[in-house]
C-alpha cells in the first residue's frame, strides 16, 4: 500500500495536520505549511513526469498507478486509487493552490486551527482526485466540504454565519442526491449474479446499468455534483459563501473545490452512465448554458469584488459542465482545461481581492479607485487575472474557452447535420457571447478599482504587497501563463483520458 505514490497525497496533508498540532508558534506553523505544500507540489510534478514517461513507454491502461486495498470487504468497498491525465491535472492544480493559499494566509489569526482545517480540506480534495472507488470518492468529497463551514464561520467576514450555513447546507443537499445515486449505481454495477462493485473502472467495464436506471440515477448524480459546480439554479451558495470566506478559503474553494463538481460529473455521471448522459444532456445543457450567460450578466452589476468574482465563477464553471455535456472529445478536453484555468485564475483573483481587502477594508468598488498607483504589484496581478478571465491569448482562459467552443460547435454541427436538433449549436453561440459580457464586467472592475483617480485619501498611505503575498501571486500568475503558453502539453496530457470506453455506449 505504501509503495503507491498516490497514497502519499493523502498522507502528507494528514502528517501536516499532525505537525500543526505539535507546533508551538506561528513561525513553526508557517514552516510546516510551506514545507508540506512544497512537498505536495514536488510530488505532483513527479507524478506528472512519471505518468508521461509511462505513457511514452506505451502504457495504454486507462488509469495508471492503480492500487486497490480492501476496506469493507463484505460491501466490496476498497481504497482504490488510480490516476489518468485528468486527475493528474487536478492534483497539480490543487497542490499549486494549496501552496499559494498557504502564503496568502501568512498572517492569519489562530493560524494553527486555520491551517488544520485547511489541510483537512486539502486531504479531502486530494483523496477525491486519486480515488476510483465511489465510496472513498464520496467520503473524501464530504471531508472536503465540511471544513468550509468552520473556515468561513470562524475566519470569515461579513454575514459569515449565514453564508457558511447556507453554503454547507446547499452543498450537503447536493451530496444527498449524490449519495443516493452512488448507492444506486453500486446496486446496478454488475450484471445479474455478478459481484457488485464500487470501482469506477469495473463498473464501466461491466456496463450493467440498464437504460431505465440510468435515466433515474444520472440526473441525481449530475445535480449532486452540479451543485458544487455552481450549476444554475443551485449556485446561490457561491456568491454569499465566497464573499464571506477568508482569502485562502475562497482560493481553495473556488479554485479546487468547485472543480470537484465538474470532475465528479465527468468521472462518475458521464463516465458510468453515458447513455443517459447522451439522452438527458439537453436538460442540463439548458441549465448550464443559462449559467454561463446568467452568471456573466449578474456579475456586470455587482459592486462587491467577491460577488463579481463569484458570479464570474458561476459563468466559468457553467462552461465546464456545459462542455462536458457536449460529449465530444475536444469539448471535454476543453472542459478539463477550463477547470485548470479557472481554478488558477480565480484563485489568483481571490488572493488579490483578499490582499486588497486586507488593506482597504472594503470590497465595494464604488469606494475604491486608482489603486494601481498605490499598489502597482497587486494592480498588475489583478489586470493579469482579469485578462486571463476574459480570455486573452497567452493566458490560460483563452485556450480553455477556445477548445470548448471549437468542440462544442463541432458537436453542435454534428447534431444539426444529423437532424438531431440545434440545441447544442444554439447554446454554443450563446456561450460564445459570454466572452463579450465577461470583457464588460472585468473591464468595469479593473477600470473602477485600479484606474482613475484615487477615491479615498486614506488609501494613499497603503502599501504594496509583502513578499509572501508576492510569492503567492507570482506562483499563480506563472501557472496561468504556463497553461496559456504551452497548451499542447496539457491538452495531450488530458486527451488520452478520453478513451473509446466513454463513448462506446452512445455510438460515438
Amino acid at each position, binding site marked *: 500500500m505504501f509503495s503507491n505514490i498516490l497514497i502519499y497525497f493523502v498522507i502528507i496533508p494528514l502528517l501536516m495536520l499532525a505537525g500543526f498540532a505539535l507546533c508551538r508558534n506561528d513561525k513553526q506553523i508557517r514552516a510546516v505549511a510551506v514545507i508540506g505544500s512544497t512537498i505536495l507540489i514536488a510530488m505532483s510534478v513527479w507524478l506528472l513526469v512519471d505518468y508521461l514517461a509511462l505513457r511514452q513507454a506505451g502504457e495504454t491502461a486507462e488509469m495508471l498507478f492503480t492500487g486497490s486495498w480492501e476496506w469493507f470487504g463484505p460491501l466490496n468497498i476498497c481504497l482504490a486509487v488510480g490516476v489518468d491525465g485528468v486527475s493528474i491535472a487536478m492534483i497539480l492544480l490543487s497542490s499549486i493552490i494549496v501552496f499559494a493559499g498557504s502564503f496568502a494566509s501568512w498572517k492569519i489569526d489562530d493560524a494553527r486551527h486555520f491551517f488544520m482545517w485547511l489541510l483537512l480540506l486539502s486531504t479531502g480534495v486530494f483523496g477525491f482526485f486519486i480515488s476510483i472507488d465511489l465510496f472513498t470518492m464520496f467520503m473524501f468529497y464530504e471531508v472536503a466540504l465540511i471544513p468550509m463551514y468552520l473556515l468561513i464561520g470562524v475566519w470569515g467576514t461579513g454575514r459569515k454565519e449565514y453564508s457558511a450555513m447556507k453554503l454547507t447546507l446547499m452543498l450537503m443537499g447536493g451530496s*444527498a*442526491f449524490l449519495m443516493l445515486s452512488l448507492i444506486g449505481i453500486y446496486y446496478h454495477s454488475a450484471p445479474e449474479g455478478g459481484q457488485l462493485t464500487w470501482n469506477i473502472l469495473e463498473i464501466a467495464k461491466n456496463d450493467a446499468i440498464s437504460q431505465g436506471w440510468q435515466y433515474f440515477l444520472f440526473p441525481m448524480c449530475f445535480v449532486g455534483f452540479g451543485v458544487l459546480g455552481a450549476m444554475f439554479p443551485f449556485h446561490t451558495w457561491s456568491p454569499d459563501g465566497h464573499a464571506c470566506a477568508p482569502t485562502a478559503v475562497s482560493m481553495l474553494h473556488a479554485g479546487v473545490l468547485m472543480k470537484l463538481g465538474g470532475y465528479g460529473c465527468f468521472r462518475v455521471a458521464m463516465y458510468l452512465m453515458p447513455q443517459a448522459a447522451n439522452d438527458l444532456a439537453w436538460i442540463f445543457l439548458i441549465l448550464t448554458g443559462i449559467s454561463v450567460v446568467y452568471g456573466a450578466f449578474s456579475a456586470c452589476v455587482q459592486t462587491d469584488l467577491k460577488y463579481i468574482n463569484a458570479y464570474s465563477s458561476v459563468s466559468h464553471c457553467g462552461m465546464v459542465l456545459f462542455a462536458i455535456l457536449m460529449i465530444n472529445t475536444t469539448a471535454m478536453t476543453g472542459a478539463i482545461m477550463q477547470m485548470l484555468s479557472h481554478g488558477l485564475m480565480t484563485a489568483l483573483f481571490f488572493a488579490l481581492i483578499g490582499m486588497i481587502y486586507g488593506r482597504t477594508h472594503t470590497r465595494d468598488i464604488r469606494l475604491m479607485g486608482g489603486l494601481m498607483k498605490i499598489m502597482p504589484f497587486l494592480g498588475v496581478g489583478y489586470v493579469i487575472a482579469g485578462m486571463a478571465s476574459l480570455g486573452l491569448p497567452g493566458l490560460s482562459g483563452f485556450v480553455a474557452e477556445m477548445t470548448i467552443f471549437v468542440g462544442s460547435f463541432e458537436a453542435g454541427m454534428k447534431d444539426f447535420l444529423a437532424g438531431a436538433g440545434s440545441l447544442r449549436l444554439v447554446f454554443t453561440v450563446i456561450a460564445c457571447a459570454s466572452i463579450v459580457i465577461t470583457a464588460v464586467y472585468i473591464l468595469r472592475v479593473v477600470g473602477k478599482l485600479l484606474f482613475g483617480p484615487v477615491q479615498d485619501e486614506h488609501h494613499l498611505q497603503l502599501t504594496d504587497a509583502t513578499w509572501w503575498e508576492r510569492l503567492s501571486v507570482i506562483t499563480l500568475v506563472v501557472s496561468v501563463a504556463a497553461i496559456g503558453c504551452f497548451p499542447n502539453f496539457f491538452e495531450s496530457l488530458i486527451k488520452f483520458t478520453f478513451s473509446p470506453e466513454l463513448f462506446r455506449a452512445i455510438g460515438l
Partner: protein
Amino acid sequence: MDYSQFLAMRQEIGVLLVFLLVFLYDTFMPKKALNATAGFTAILFSIFTVASFVWGNVGTVDAFAGMYSTSPVCSMIKNILNVGVVIVLIQSVRWTNGDMMVVRRGEFYELLLVTLFGMYLMISARHFLLFVIGLESASLPLAAMVAMDKNRYESHEAAIKYILTAVFSSAIFMMGLSFVYGLAGSLYFEDIALQLGSQVDTLLVVALAFVIAGVGFKLSLVPFHLWTADVYQGAPTSVTSYLSVISKGAAAFAFLVILVQAFGQFYSAAWEWMLYALIILTITVGNLFAIRQKNMKRFLAFSSISQAGYIMLGVVGCNEMGLAAMMYYILVYIFSNLAAFGVIGAIENQTGKVDMTDYNGLSKTNPWLACAMMLAMFSLAGIPPFAGFFSKFFIFTSAINQGSIAIYVLVLIALINTIASLYYYLLVVKAMYISPEEPQIATFRSALSERLGLWICVGGVIALGIVSFFYDAILEATANSPMFAFIG
C-alpha cells in the same frame, strides 16, 4: 428439567451477578466505602463486559422450550450495549458522587442493571410473555431512575410523564398481543408465524399496529414519541444518556426480531408500508422539532428521535445486511451520543448550565470539551471521516438493497432530512466556535471519569468508521442468521 439451559443465558446471569455484587456491596459495606460504589460498579461491569466478549457467545442455542434463544447476533448486540453501559457508568461517576446522591448511589446502579437485564430478555425472547417481562423490567425501573433527581421538579414531572405513558403504551401493546394470541393461539414467535399463515385480515393489521406502537414507544417513533423530549430534559443527564442509547438500541433490535420472526410473512403486505410511514414521520418530525430547541438535552432528545428513524431503515431492508448495518449504527450512535451527553454532563455538573446559548464561545474557554462536542455533532450528522458517516452510508446502502423504487424515495427523503439535521448540529458548533459573544462558561477541568468517558467516546467516533474491523465483525456475526426465514 435440564439446568444446563441456564448456561445459554450466561450473559443474563452475568448481569444478575454484577447486580447482586453491587447490591451486596451497597448493603453491607461500611458507609465510608460507599463512596467507591460507582467505581466498583464500573470496574465490575467492565470486567463483565470483557468476559462477555470472550465467553458470551455460545452459538445459536434455544433454551426453555424455545422461549429464550441466543445466537452470535444476540450476544453481539448485548456486547454492544455493554460497551455503552460501561461508558455511561464511567460518565456517571461524578454525578453519583454528588452530595445529593449519597443515599441513593447504590439504587441508581441496581436499577440500571435491572433494566439492562430486562433489555437482554427483550433481545433474546422468542415468546411474548418473556418479551413483555423484559419490556416491563426494562421500562419500570427507568421511571424510578428518571425521578432520581429529588430536588428538581422537572425530574418528577418527567417521571410521571414517563410512567403514565409507558403504562398506557404497554396496555395498548398487550391489547395487540391479545388479538395476536386470539388469532394464532400461541405466543411463541415461530408458532405465530406458522399459525397465521399468509392471510392478512383486518384484526391482524390492527393488532400489528398496536404491537408496533408498543415497541415504537420504546424506540420513540413518531407519533409515539411525545414523552421523549420531556423525559430526556427532565431526567438526570446520566439517565438521559442511558435512556437515549442503550434502551433505544435494545428496543430497535427487539423490534426487528418481533417483526421478522413473528410477522415476517406480512412484510410486503402490511408492515413494510407502516414502517415507511413511521420512518418518514419520525425523521421529519424529529428534525423539525430539533431545529428550534434551546435546551441541549431536549435538543438531543429530538435528534435521537430522528436518529431512531434512521435506525429503522435497517429494519426495512429486512436482510442480514440491514441487521448488520443497524447494529453498527447502534454502536456508532452509542459512541457519538454518549460523547455529546458526556460534554453536556460535564458542563452541567460543573455549572448547571444546559442551554445552547450557554455554550457560546465554549471553544475559547474549554477547547477540548468543545472539540469533543463538535466531533460528536459531526458524527451524528454523518460527516466523514467520523464514524457516523459510515454508519449512515451503510444503513442507506442496506436499505436500498431491497431494490424497489419506493425505497429509493424513502431513502431520498431520509437523505434530504440529513440536511436539516446537519443544520441543527451545526448550530451547536456555531455556538461553540463562531458565536462572537462572550463565553458563558469559565475554563474548568472536568473530572477524571468524565475525561476518561469522553476520550473513549471520541476514540470510538474516530476509529469505528475508519477501522473496518468493527463493521466486519458485526457482519460476520449476522451472516447466515436464520432470522429472516419468514420474509416473503
